[in-house]
């Protein structure tokens, strides 16, 4: 019913052109047009963080943006994190090992928030970790194991870095 717009997006390293109505949310475009359903829709108000993606290097809530506003952007979603079909990114592996998830609905957002945070702050304190995920809500856990997972990921990634220098 509305006139559609062509939007160019680089998502997880692949160029896409999608045709969307002007008021289509970025999260719906990712989920419906590109079938990347790992990005979840929770509150649709920017409060819960379930829809977190990384856009041009920044954490973004994809429920707060129209797809047309993302024209030309480079986007990473949870589906891009692991390098291969069998792999896990160190942050993902740490969530597995520390039981840092339950229902998994908040999890992609948490993992992406953690990943970009650790890129900026590779050896954080627990307080800094708490601060980093303060905008992501999880209703299942008591958060402590998410903090454990992020700390563990930081330690392992630091270990790998050190290993590479030897």
């Amino acid at each position, binding site marked *: 019913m509305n006139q559609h717009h062509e939007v160019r997006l680089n998502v997880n390293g692949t160029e896409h052109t999608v045709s969307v109505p002007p008021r289509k949310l970025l999260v719906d475009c990712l989920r419906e047009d590109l079938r990347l359903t790992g990005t979840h829709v929770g509150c*649709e108000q920017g409060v819960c963080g379930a829809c977190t993606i990384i856009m041009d290097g920044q954490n973004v809530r994809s429920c707060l943006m129209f797809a047309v506003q993302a024209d030309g952007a480079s986007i990473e979603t949870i589906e891009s994190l692991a390098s291969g079909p069998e792999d896990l990114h160190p942050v993902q592996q740490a969530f597995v090992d520390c*039981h840092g998830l339950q229902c998994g609905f908040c999890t992609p957002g948490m993992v992406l928030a953690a990943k970009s945070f650790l890129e900026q702050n590779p050896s954080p304190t627990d307080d800094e970790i708490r601060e980093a995920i303060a905008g992501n809500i999880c209703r299942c856990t008591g958060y402590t*194991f998410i903090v454990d997972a992020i700390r563990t990921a930081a330690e392992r990634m630091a270990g790998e870095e050190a290993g590479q220098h030897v």
Partner: protein
Amino acid sequence: MTVVTGTGTREVGRSRTRLDAREKLRGEAMFTGDMEVPGMLYGRVLRSQHPHAEIVSINTSAAERMPGVAAVLVGRDLLDIDPYYGHAIKDRPIIAIERVRFSGEPVAAVAAEDEATAEAALAAIEVVYEELPLVDTIDKALDPAAPLLHEGPIRPGLFHGLGNLGERDGNIGYRYRLDSGDVAGESAGAAFVTEGEYLFPAVYQYAMETHSVIADWKPNEIAIWASCQHPFLVQAEIADLFGLPIGAVRIQVPYLGGGFGSKSYTKMEPLTVALSRKARAPVKIVNRVDESMVTSRRHGMRCWMRTTADADGTLLTRESRFWLDTGAYMDNGPRVTATAADSAPGPYRWRAVHIDAMCVYCNTAPSGSYRAFGATHLQWVAESQLDELARKAGIDPLEMRRRNLLRPGEPVRPDGSGKPLDADLIGDVERAAAAVGWDEPKGPLVGRGVSVGLLAAGAHPVSRASVRMRADGSVEVSVGTTEMGQGPRTVMAQIAAEELGCSSDRVRVLGADTRFTPYDRSTGASRSTTLAGKAVQNAAAAVAAKLRETACEVWDVASELIELRDGKAAYGDLEMEFSEVIAKRFGFTGGEIIEGGEVRPMGGDTGSYAEGPVFWEVCVAAVEVEVDPELGKVNVTRTATVADVGRAINPLLVERQDEGAFMQGYGNAMFEEMVYRDGELINDNLLEYRVPRIQDLPRQMTSIVVENEDGPGPHGAKGCGEGALAAVPAAIVNALGDAGVPITQLPLTPERVWRRLQDLSEPQSTEELT
């Protein structure tokens, strides 16, 4: 992951990583909202803004003419079926018929080629209402002059299990009484008496994933994909509503993004099926948060309670009358009411008890199950009266509990019926108290509190499961338990692997598909590990027996001498891979072993679950708080919760569950509250309905896992994951009372606490003023 070999349990008792973790972390796990089926339309629901009104007319013609709209459903489309459902009481129409009883009730639904079109069509529907008198609170509903929200005889639902439903009594839809002993006589000489009125607000489960359904109606079969906790109960209700045999309703349950009771029993499924029937195409409905908030919630409550004790602190009598606001329709109100009544006496020895529990219809959105229902309502009231008596008698609250708590084997229900106590409560509460420094000195406005309660758990002990070993020795467990975060897929794999003598790595646990999956009553009441787990254990044991049978034929030895370990059958030095055993059994490559297991109340090979409840879930916590007198803010500084699980099949999963329940208990106590104005929910979004965030975490949280192997489940296990939610608000209220700020209304908002502090610091006590 640790690889374990040797004897003793090899899988049970180990914190295996979650079998669903990789999928969920890689964004591959499918939730209902992620799914599409060919030819699918999108449904949106027009909801009433009026809490109580007659529907004078609905005009859908403009909406129907809009391009892209396939169907518009209203009440009159359901004239050919009996459109009322409700597992306890059949009081709810699939969509409003002639009258709306709550703000948010579905009045019309549109199926269209996309959501935006469906949404636009809703705006084109004209509904004319005539408002009716508003019955939006318990008090108004109880007024003899109040209009009746439901009339005519009470129609029992398919799963009411409530005995005789009795006569309708005004707006009281269900009433449950516990009566034992002579309260007046026994309390006449009491040395200490406490009495009060208490208020608990409606709260929302807030599963992160909203209710989501895809339904595909065909004349002879209905296919449904749904975020539902109890697929088999929904299957039966849909079959009943649409006139099909049970087997012609197929429900598949993908992962759930949390449930906590909000997705128990039937929710959005009937409406989605009816819309699909009208549209003659599959339809998907995904609620927004505000819509899910009027789909299920926890009952608000008003409660009066009186407790007495003699001079040495021995408890004498307890009386309570309370009213739960069930909203416009019963949903699980009766069960919540009965469970709350069961929790009202608490696990203590009484001379006499009188409990009168009433479930009341109001013009508010329906209330149903929310984790630890009933117990969460009553435990904080009951336990705060215990502390008050202890204060009056000058007895330490922990000592007060030692004197009065039931011991294992003593009857829990005051009339002596049902399962006796199956846990060491004194041990549990002592451990919790020690973890928050019970005997340490404390400063002004610092308080510590404990709380102890029991939750009737397990619901009905009816579960089946099957275990299938394929020709290559890989294993599938088929069990109806819904994976909504609590980890049953991992736990079931461990239970099966233990029986089979192999690693849980080779076990897959499948989600429910009612066409193939054996019946399981429900996923709730902390029952899955205990009951579905027992069915899995029995099925796996039957597969193991077949493996032994074949191995003993091959080696010609008695089957007791054959051991199953590391994925092999072994006898002394002889070993055969499971795949070889299966090949030998069938004499050819191929074949499989598939066996079932069951749990039912009586008989069979499963032991007896005849006495309800299946087990008593322990609800024990201790808390330390600090009150900021300037701001009225309560800081919870140290907490301990007890997961008394009999045997932890997967200890880390137990801790995660316990911690999650703690967090929700904390939210329920401290700030969660659904705010209504004239029957309308006004904080129906995550900005205004606050749930706990990481900043809210207490600095020190201890989760104590107690394993006394005293549960009726596999390896002595019993369920967990709800107890802390009931125990934590009670412990916080008691800690606050200990700090000198007794409170009788939740949540403990700074304003409420600050006002209470002002009242308490008035030179004269309020009693003297009034």
